[in-house]
């Protein structure tokens, strides 16, 4: 058993085989490794999570002891948020479960399936793998180009907003200087001075006032448009990110695990695929819909007293809270686990809230995680800059229990 594990321990695999019994899959691993060397077999759930988060393999092959266990595993991983990136998934199943495997693919839970027991057509597996790798590489390249492209547009928009502000400041200073020069200007005699004063009062000052007002309006309008553009770009990027994640993981994350077991556990080899495989999410009874959800919340705050206070308020409401004292620790934890919401301080040693958020937004499953800023009223400019990275709300310290819970509610995270 250990033999295969040792053979396929690629650190950043492009293909992973998730299974519960490595020994059973000797033939399969040989076929896959003959096709691609960047391949790893995983049978431990923690390792699966870790490798998926770190390496984001292009193709995920699942071969648990039954199709229902494979669906359960994929669904669990999707719910953990470790599959939120473009990838292809392939189900391996026994011949007796081929009907279920086929129906799972028709229901868009898996992209393709292959009968490995008995394995008659190893070239067929190689073909499936080749096509999956090809499609996945293309999707991944598109994602990279998109992220780079939108990142560049965003940087350029930020620069334009800063430039507009700078231009406004410079122009205002020029007008101010002009007014001062005018105030100091005197004529050669009283008549000339009086004439200059009259000119100033009747024509130049109103003109300068008008110029100043038009300038302010134009710059404000320009900045507003640039900011709107910035929001549109961010929204479009988020939408495209959402689209690039395969339907399979969306489907899988919606599957209720208990229903999967009952629905898939009664295989009928002869069934046609139209037969109802109950894997689609069904509306739950109203009471169940309202059932409390324990949100997983991270509190990032360097002051232990305030950190503990916020954590206590959230825990008392039934949330699952983990607190950390630095941005760096937060990033490390977010790479490993999925959270529903983050409370974050602005000023922290080593890495402040703004830069921590910037890093968090680059973690695959954290691009849209709601972040609530904890800060004081004094840092409005910094908060504005921070908000451009996507803040769900902002709380002025120390705040009140009511405001804190309201902010959580606003993020659609209910206790």
């Amino acid at each position, binding site marked *: 058993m250990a033999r295969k594990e040792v053979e396929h321990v690629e650190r950043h695999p492009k293909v992973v085989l998730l299974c519960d019994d490595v020994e059973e899959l000797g033939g399969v691993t040989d076929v896959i490794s003959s096709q691609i060397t960047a391949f790893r077999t995983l049978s431990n759930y923690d390792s699966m999570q870790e490798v998926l988060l770190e390496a984001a393999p292009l193709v995920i092959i699942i071969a648990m002891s039954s199709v229902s266990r494979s669906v359960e595993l994929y669904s669990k991983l999707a719910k953990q948020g470790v599959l939120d990136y473009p990838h292809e998934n392939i189900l391996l199943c026994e011949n007796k479960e081929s009907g279920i495997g086929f129906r799972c693919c028709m229901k868009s839970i898996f992209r393709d399936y292959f009968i490995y027991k008995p394995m008659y057509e190893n070239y067929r597996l190689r073909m499936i793998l080749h096509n999956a790798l090809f499609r996945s590489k293309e999707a991944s390249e598109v994602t990279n180009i998109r992220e780079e492209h939108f990142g560049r547009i965003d940087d350029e928009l930020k620069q334009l907003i800063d430039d507009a502000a700078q231009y406004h400041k410079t122009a205002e200073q020029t007008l101010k200087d002009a007014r001062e020069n005018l105030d100091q200007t005197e004529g050669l005699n009283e008549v000339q001075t009086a004439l200059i004063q009259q000119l100033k009062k009747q024509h130049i000052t109103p003109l300068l006032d008008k110029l100043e007002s038009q300038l302010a309006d134009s710059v404000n309008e320009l900045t507003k448009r640039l900011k709107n553009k910035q929001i549109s770009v961010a929204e479009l990027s988020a939408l495209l990110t959402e689209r690039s994640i395969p339907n399979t993981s969306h489907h899988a994350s919606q599957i209720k695990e208990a229903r999967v077991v009952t629905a898939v556990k009664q295989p009928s080899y002869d069934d046609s695929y139209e037969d109802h495989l109950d894997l689609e999410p069904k509306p739950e009874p109203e009471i169940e819909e309202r059932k409390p959800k324990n949100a997983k919340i991270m509190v990032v*705050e*360097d*002051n*232990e*007293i*305030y950190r*503990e*206070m916020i954590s*206590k*308020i959230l825990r008392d409401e039934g949330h699952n809270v983990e607190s950390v004292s630095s941005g760096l620790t937060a990033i490390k934890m977010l790479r490993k686990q999925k959270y529903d919401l983050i409370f974050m*301080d602005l*000023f922290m*040693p080593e890495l402040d809230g703004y830069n921590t958020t910037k890093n968090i937004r680059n973690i695959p499953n954290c691009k849209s995680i709601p972040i609530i800023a904890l800060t*004081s*009223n004094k840092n409005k400019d910094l908060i504005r800059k921070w908000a451009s990275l996507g803040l769900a709300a902002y709380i*002025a*310290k*120390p*705040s*009140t*229990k*009511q405001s804190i819970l309201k902010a959580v509610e606003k993020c659609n995270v209910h206790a």
Partner: protein
Amino acid sequence: MDISNLDNLQVLNEQVMLELLGDDTSEINSFRQQFLHQAKSSLQKIAGFYREQQFKQIKDEAHYLKTSAKAIGAERCAYYLQQLEDASLELDKAQCKSHIQSLSSEIKGVFRACSAQT
């Protein structure tokens, strides 16, 4: 919490913690004790930074303590911590000294207020 006007600020505004944590007295007392420990340790650090004229460190430590001062309702402490932050940003040694002394006195005030309530 507006801590810009000292005249309106209390040594220990009980309402702040009531609004944050509710009326769990033992919890409130526990946080107050934690603050007093934290304040003592921070004040010593600030004094050390002041002697070595490490203004950036003074600012950071003052900001750190200000968070918990605000959270337990030690409004006057929070005021002087804000003043100390501003003075250290301006590298104003004389002002820093004055604010550190005021802060020390305010922390003693919080200690007395806490003792009176327990």
